[in-house]
């Protein structure tokens, strides 16, 4: 599964046709959703499949329709960006060396509040889906913040895009008025 993910990522980088890239990023999201399912994170997989593979592909295609279909060949040398990427990647890999092994019992995720949530949620909230219990009740403030972020993002996009649209329309109206 992970190999498939890497293959898709490499293909995305190598492609020139942006239409194929948009489709492959959808495939990438779908494969990562499957990866989440095998890791038993069904809620996350759900979101990834719906947002990553569904909506964002549609939005990217919508953007493509507004711009052009093929990537412009880059004009500057790739050495500096490559250097930055390699250094960042090396730093990230160095950072993972200190992380606990996958699924180890004494990692912070297992020993911190998660255990308390799992123990008490049956008594406190009595819902079979602990993810929902944690998301909406124990971590209610965080989810409120998340909703506010989604709200703000939506308002931002609306202001940017429809504002521009209106200005263009006004300009067109003026031009046609002058003619």
């Amino acid at each position, binding site marked *: 599964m992970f190999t498939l993910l890497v293959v898709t990522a490499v293909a995305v980088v190598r492609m020139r046709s942006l239409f194929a890239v948009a489709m492959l990023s959808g495939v990438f999201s779908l494969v990562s959703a499957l990866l989440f399912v095998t890791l038993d994170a069904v809620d996350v997989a759900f979101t990834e499949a719906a947002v990553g593979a569904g909506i964002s592909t549609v939005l990217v295609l919508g953007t493509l329709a507004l711009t052009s279909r093929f990537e412009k060949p880059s004009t500057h040398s790739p050495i500096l960006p490559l250097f930055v990427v390699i250094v960042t990647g090396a730093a990230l890999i160095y950072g993972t060396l200190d992380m606990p092994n996958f699924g180890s019992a004494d990692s912070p995720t297992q020993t911190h509040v998660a255990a308390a949530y799992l123990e008490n949620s049956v008594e406190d909230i009595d819902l079979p889906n602990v993810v929902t219990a944690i998301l909406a009740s124990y971590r209610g403030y965080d989810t409120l913040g998340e909703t506010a972020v989604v709200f703000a993002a939506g308002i931002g996009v609306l202001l940017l895009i429809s504002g521009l*649209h209106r200005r263009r329309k006004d300009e067109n109206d003026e031009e046609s008025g002058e003619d």
Partner: protein
Amino acid sequence: MRHHLILRVVTKLLVGTIMLFAFYVQFHGDFSPGGGFQAGVIMAAAFIIYGIVFSLGTVQKVFPPWLVHKLIALGVLLYAGTGIVSMFLGYAYLDYGAFTPDHPSHGQHYGIFVVELGVGITVTGVMVAIYYAFAGRPPRMSDEEW
């Protein structure tokens, strides 16, 4: 997409099912995987498919932009309002035990239900609004160029 007969028929069949599934994910999220975020996105996907296959004008007749914009704010208000109601009942902000003081876990159920509904409404609204914003601009490419 006026000539894609199969797409149009299949879409008509599917849109209802997708919406039903969105409601299932929304209201059954307490018992199975899912919740407001996922349901909101699935619901928005139903409208977006409808918009792609038929036309932006058709979907905006069903779900007009002014309604979408109101829904974006309504969801957040529903969420924040739940917290304020629990404050008025003498509990902490967003303490859902306030709704049924003699049986706190029932109150939690109601609270989570309302809050997830708020999340779902906002996410649906934002996704559909972003789609409208993108699709509403005149495209520079004609259909044949794809």
